[in-house]
């Protein structure tokens, strides 16, 4: 009897010991076990996806790290508005500071951060780890993303190569938010059909077939200044890249290009008739937008839609939560792909701008910070973390999560988001080290035209192309110098 009891006790003890052993050994094995590490994430101020990353780091990764690795980590979130985040990050990294350990970068900054060696080469991290810091290879970070365009946008630098420098933090694309009470109102529908000879789209599938010409008629129909109602709202502000992001779809979808990424030739590519026509069309859309839309950015766009001033809004999927925060508005909103552009062969092309941001890892992190950063990123891409990110309003990019059958039902914009994140429907622009300088030039030119300060689109494109070509040439990024005629081209 006693022997049996003793035998049973020993067996139970051995089993418990065996169960606990892996946990204990894992905790012992982790070099930071028992330590407390402070980490800082730099992200976009007032931008939900950025703050979600940081809040999830503290809410979820902190206990996860405690349980699995045995260390305590405290994340702080430093933030700057879109237009000044790059300066803040670049100034800090240029001084080789580890003030920010993980940075939520905009996709176009990858080149600017990678070229001077400020951020960790993710290819290297995946293949070889960081031996000098005792960090092993990280094959789990070799992610399968939902589309090639997502990989090219959030990970790759230089353009056209397979080198990766970033990991997707948040995917984003432009989608169309439409008010159902106006769209589905039988009287409105009948009046519209009577006036324009075709029925307004009703479903997601109908909107897939909608062209910009047709949408323009819908926008004109709902533009009723006497009722303080306008057809739509886009973004035309000079701040950061707002006007650029909403003009490119008119160019790309109609076959226009902004440069040749191989030769870095801007002159002769950007200043094309297709692009000039696109600028005219983009400016014409202001006729259906509320007064002041020429200065509208993301926030003004959200305000116009949530205050019921517009029938529809071209807006980022990432701000879906702000756009339909009110349950009543959420129920009254249809979120669909933005209109396509009719091609000569009768097909519809829609190529909109990519938004979203990658994470980049500061190359000047201490070994402890680097290890935590790697642990955090491995955790971030676990399917359950990515699904939780989506449940909180974020937009994951990992293929397995976006392809999950339940993904489209998590948020009302998810279906349109996944639709637009597909190859051929969205594009990103230059990942050049001189990105911000090139952007500042075209923002000046594009907004000068959109606001009516200048009225010759081709001259505006010539002026931008000259200056961008000069920037690339002066910085030894292109062997093609701006042509001599650039000397006589002025914006005004």
């Amino acid at each position: 009897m006693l022997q049996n009891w003793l035998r049973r006790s020993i067996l139970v003890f051995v089993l418990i010991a065996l169960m606990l052993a892996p946990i204990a050994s894992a905790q012992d094995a982790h070099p930071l076990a028992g330590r407390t590490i402070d980490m800082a994430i730099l992200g976009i101020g007032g931008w939900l996806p950025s703050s979600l990353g940081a809040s999830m780091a503290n809410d979820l990764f902190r206990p996860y790290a405690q349980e699995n690795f045995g260390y305590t980590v405290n994340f702080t979130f430093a933030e700057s508005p879109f237009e000044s985040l790059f300066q803040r990050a670049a100034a800090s990294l240029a001084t080789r500071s580890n003030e920010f350990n993980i940075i939520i970068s905009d996709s176009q900054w990858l080149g600017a951060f990678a070229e001077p060696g400020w951020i960790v080469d993710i290819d290297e991290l995946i293949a070889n780890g960081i031996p000098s810091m005792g960090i092993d290879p990280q094959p789990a970070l070799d992610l399968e993303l939902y589309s090639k365009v997502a990989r090219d946008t959030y990970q790759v630098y230089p353009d056209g190569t397979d080198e990766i420098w970033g990991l997707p933090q948040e995917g984003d694309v432009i989608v169309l938010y439409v008010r159902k009470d106006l769209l589905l109102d039988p009287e409105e529908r009948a009046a519209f059909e009577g006036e324009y000879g075709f029925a307004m789209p009703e479903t997601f599938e109908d909107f897939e077939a909608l062209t910009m010409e047709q949408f323009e008629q819908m926008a004109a129909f709902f533009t009723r200044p006497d009722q303080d109602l306008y057809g739509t709202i886009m973004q035309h502000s000079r701040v950061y890249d707002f006007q650029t992001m909403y003009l490119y779809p008119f160019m790309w979808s109609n076959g226009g290009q902004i440069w040749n990424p191989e030769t870095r030739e801007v002159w002769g590519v950007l200043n094309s008739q297709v692009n000039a026509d696109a600028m005219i069309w983009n400016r014409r859309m202001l006729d259906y937008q509320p007064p002041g839309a020429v200065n509208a950015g993301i926030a003004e766009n959200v305000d116009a839609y949530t205050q019921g001033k517009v029938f529809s809004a071209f807006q980022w999927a990432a701000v879906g939560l702000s756009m339909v925060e009110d349950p009543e508005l959420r129920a009254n909103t249809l979120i669909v792909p933005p209109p396509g552009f009719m091609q000569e062969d009768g097909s519809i092309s829609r190529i909109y701008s990519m938004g979203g941001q990658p994470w980049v890892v500061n190359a000047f992190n201490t070994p402890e910070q680097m290890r935590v950063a790697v642990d955090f990123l491995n955790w971030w891409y676990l399917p359950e973390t990515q699904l939780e990110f989506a449940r909180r309003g974020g937009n994951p990019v990992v293929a397995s999560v976006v392809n999950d059958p339940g993904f489209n039902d998590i948020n009302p914009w998810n279906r349109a988001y996944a639709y637009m994140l597909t190859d051929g429907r969205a594009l990103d622009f230059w990942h050049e080290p001189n990105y911000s300088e090139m952007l500042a030039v075209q923002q000046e030119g594009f907004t000068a035209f959109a606001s009516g300060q200048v009225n010759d689109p081709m001259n505006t494109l010539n002026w931008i192309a000259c200056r961008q070509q000069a920037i690339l040439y002066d910085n030894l990024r292109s062997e093609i110098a701006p042509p001599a005629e650039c000397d006589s081209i002025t914006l005004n």
Partner: protein
Amino acid sequence: MQAESTERIAYAAPRTRGLMRGRAFLVRLLNDIRVFPALLLIPVLIFFILWNVIPTLWMIGLSFYKYSLMSPNERFLGLRNYNDILNDVQVWASLGRTFVWVFAGVSIQTALGFLLGLLFWGSRDMPGRRIALTMLFAPMIITPIAAGAFFQLIYEPTFGVVNWVVRQFGGNVNLLGDTNLAFGAVLFVDIWMWTPFMILITLAALGSVPKAELEAAEVDRLPWLQRFRHIILPNAKFILMLGILLRTIDSFKTLDLIYLMTRGGPGNTTDLIALLLRRQAFEALEFGWASALALILLLTAIAFTSIYLYILNLSSKRQEA
């Protein structure tokens, strides 16, 4: 006294003797009329060298290079940055806009400030004078960012109060979105903010007019215009000119208000030179080019100051003659 202290040192214990010698040396140093003022200047000189001289020299050096945070390999360009700037139409356009901004802004602020200052100068017994002055000075105390934010809302075309009033008369106005109106709309905010400063300067200037001369003019029944021309203006002009000089330099550097309200837009209609400089330095991170422009602007500001001072000196010499 020195002999007494030397005597005391001679009788003291060796350790105390050393301390006393040190003390005596310090006393001698502090009593030296050539050394003492220099000693007082040392802290401020260190501060000045650290924060003004070294950065300025550094900036001058950078202006001869192609130096960008994005490409760590700087290249010596000689005077090319200066050449590029002087041949850049956008720089000239921006500079032209800035001169209009400075000239229009400072002129209106000075005229309004002077008139209001005169009004308050002659109304010491006016009921509510203190409250009126406090309210009048309030815009000057508000930070430009806050003032810009207020006026952005006031000018907002869909719910702003300005457009609401215009709509009552059947019109519609988009002050910050209209290329013809944006510059004037932002300039108005600058004038609203800084006119009180010129009122303050005017009151200070008028306060410096000798009472005896004014009383004599009163006794002689000198017409007001003559009093203004021969007594008030000659006595008040130095302080007034100082106010104008300060406003000119400050106005030339305007950045915050425009940055918040229009970012230089629509198009580039409100793009002042400080905004262009900021964009090149902190958005494009082209520090070489931006340093060259900053140096040109610094020299321009020094030229302004010199012209003012020259005019002031010239008129005071004429007066003395």
